[in-house]
């Protein structure tokens, strides 16, 4: 959604041609991200003629401030979509930055890894908006990601296993 998409496209902006194909997964309720992604990929194709990408939507796993218990239910529902999708895509690397959508995708990837089907590296970048506290996705994925990147020093102190590279978006 919105700010998350803008941030993730900035993160992708300096990646080399080797990161291809890029599979974008976003919430079905998100109306604006598709246009932003297409615009970004159009520019990327000007530099890298062989760049490929796909777009997939899954049900939104959590509304802002949705309660814990109902979030578990909606996340499980999203997993009905994210699990077959992740199985189909078999990503080598998952890059996510905090919208609820990333949780079912990462859980699916972890399951596929546990089952010996495909092991993906999970890289989580917490939003630049998070200066002192982690988002809910961040709190969950801090324990399940391979690399957890924060953009402010306070968070690096509070979450010592995180990586701090300064502001990267």
């Amino acid at each position, binding site marked *: 959604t*919105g*700010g998350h998409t*803008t941030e993730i496209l*900035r*993160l*992708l*902006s*300096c*990646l*080399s041609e*080797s*990161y291809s194909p890029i599979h974008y997964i976003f919430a079905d309720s998100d109306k604006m991200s598709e246009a932003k992604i297409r615009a970004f990929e159009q520019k990327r194709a000007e530099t890298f003629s062989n760049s490929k990408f796909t777009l997939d939507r899954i049900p939104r796993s959590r509304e802002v401030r949705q309660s814990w218990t109902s979030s578990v239910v909606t996340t499980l529902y999203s997993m009905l979509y994210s699990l077959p999708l992740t199985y189909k895509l078999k990503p*080598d*690397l998952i*890059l996510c930055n905090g919208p609820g959508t990333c949780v079912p995708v990462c859980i699916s990837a972890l399951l596929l890894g546990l089952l010996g089907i495909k092991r993906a*590296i999970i*890289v989580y*970048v917490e*939003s*630049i*908006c*998070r*200066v*002192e*506290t982690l*988002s809910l996705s961040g709190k969950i994925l801090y324990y399940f990601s*391979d*690399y957890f*990147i924060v*953009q*402010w020093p306070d968070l690096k102190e509070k979450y010592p296993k995180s*990586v701090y*590279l*300064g*502001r*990267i*978006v």
Partner: protein
Amino acid sequence: FRFKDSLAEDLRRADLVISHAGAGSCLETLEKGKPLVVVINEKLMNNHQLELAKQLHRDGHVLCCNCSTLVETLQLMDLSALKPFPPGQPEKFALFLDKVVGFQ
């Protein structure tokens, strides 16, 4: 106006921006190098969005006030004291990721 697809044009022409504490608004304004006064809505005090506005204020990039102190802030403000906001560095992320994945 109520809603526009992009404020880029308005931002380009502005000399001063007064905004709520939303991260997108703050960052977009600072990146265009415009002076920014952030108005904080006390009723949303538990909203994490305040974290960024407070940090930007601590770092001297924006002026902060609330609805009742806005007029006074505008009257007394010294915009030259605001520090420029350097852009983020996604190239650092690319370098890091290349190492993680094994492209070197």
